[in-house]
């Protein structure tokens, strides 16, 4: 687990976070998880509302397979909301 460099964080904030459906990322690298198994590859995790195939979304919203030299891992987390009880309505 390595902390991303400042320029990598800036790039993700300025470019990746602007893409439609992207809701967050991890500022430390993680081991890739593939089919439930941990693979020894460091990745940068990008959190999205819904995962979709590249051909189903606009080209500018597709997340690159590699971000600033680090493989990306797109993780679906749903719509994240502040959890006061108004959210139960």
């Amino acid at each position, binding site marked *: 687990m390595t902390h991303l460099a400042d320029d990598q964080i800036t790039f993700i904030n300025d470019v990746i976070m602007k893409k439609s459906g992207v809701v967050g990322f991890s*500022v430390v690298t993680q081991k890739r998880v593939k089919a439930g198994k941990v693979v020894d590859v460091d990745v940068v995790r990008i959190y999205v509302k819904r995962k979709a195939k590249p051909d189903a979304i606009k080209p500018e919203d597709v997340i690159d397979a590699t971000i600033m030299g680090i493989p990306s891992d797109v993780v679906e987390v*749903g719509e994240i909301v*502040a*959890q*006061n*009880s*108004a959210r139960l309505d």
Partner: protein
Amino acid sequence: MGVSISSVQTTAGTAGCLVKRKSDGKLCVLSNWHVLKDQEACLQQGKRDGGSFSGNFVGTSQGIPVPPSGGNVDCSLLVLDSDALVRPDILELGIPKGINTNPTQGMKVKKSGRTTGLTEGEITDTHAVISVDYGDGIRTLEDLILTTAMSQGGDSGSALIDENMNVLGLLFAGSDAITVHCKIQNVLSALQVELATGLQEPVWYSPVAIVIPYSISAGLAMPPPPAPPSGIKTPQLKASLDKQSYKAGEKMLISGAITDPDTQAGLDARGIQARSAGFSTSPWQSISDKDGKFSIPMITLKAPDQDMDFTVEISFAGDP
């Protein structure tokens, strides 16, 4: 803690845990800014759960608004009107022992919240940046803990607790897939508070009853009752009749004491009642004698002509 609160302007969230203001040692409840806001009257239960200013006012909020630019905390204090308004323990969890500023991936965690109660989860990220929909706009917060999904709307403000009862974070957002928490060290630092420690777990007593056979006037040893749930004590109850025999219409006095089984200190009981077949049942009366002593007068409607049992029952405020 772990129960519904809100400000008068919001709906309902959760009272997380107790903290102390560094400036003056004042006891406060920790929750989120989006639950309590800032400088507002606060309610328990929260407004959505029926709380109103006239009946549920418990204090005033002192919060840090989350700016559109985000930051790393969504937190607010409920500055209590009186320390006596709160219990130090988190519902179904107990009193936090301290804080844990070193969350790790895979760590098992739990929380107790207003909507989903006690739930468990696992940390999936300890350095996350997340965009949260606040209803009035999106705010992107950083240096967050992510866990597997362990909350729903209304659980905001819950304390995230590790397996050793240390506070790791403050729950504030989530989805169907994950729950999002601020780190406790960021929260305490932003609010200039520390976790309130050294607080005592309140003692709860189970209701208790004993039977006094009429033919024996001494306080008698009863078979031990079944063990109550952990955290609840069975108080010691002794009672006896004042005479060996009674005539019809004669006053009969049942006297005794209710004490803590460990300390022998007298207990305040909500109600005590004695009854027996063929006799007037005494009205429920409270015990406030500092030694836990009581006496219950009963009138014998007829002279007891056979052995019979008198039952003395005691219950306590807040009995589970």
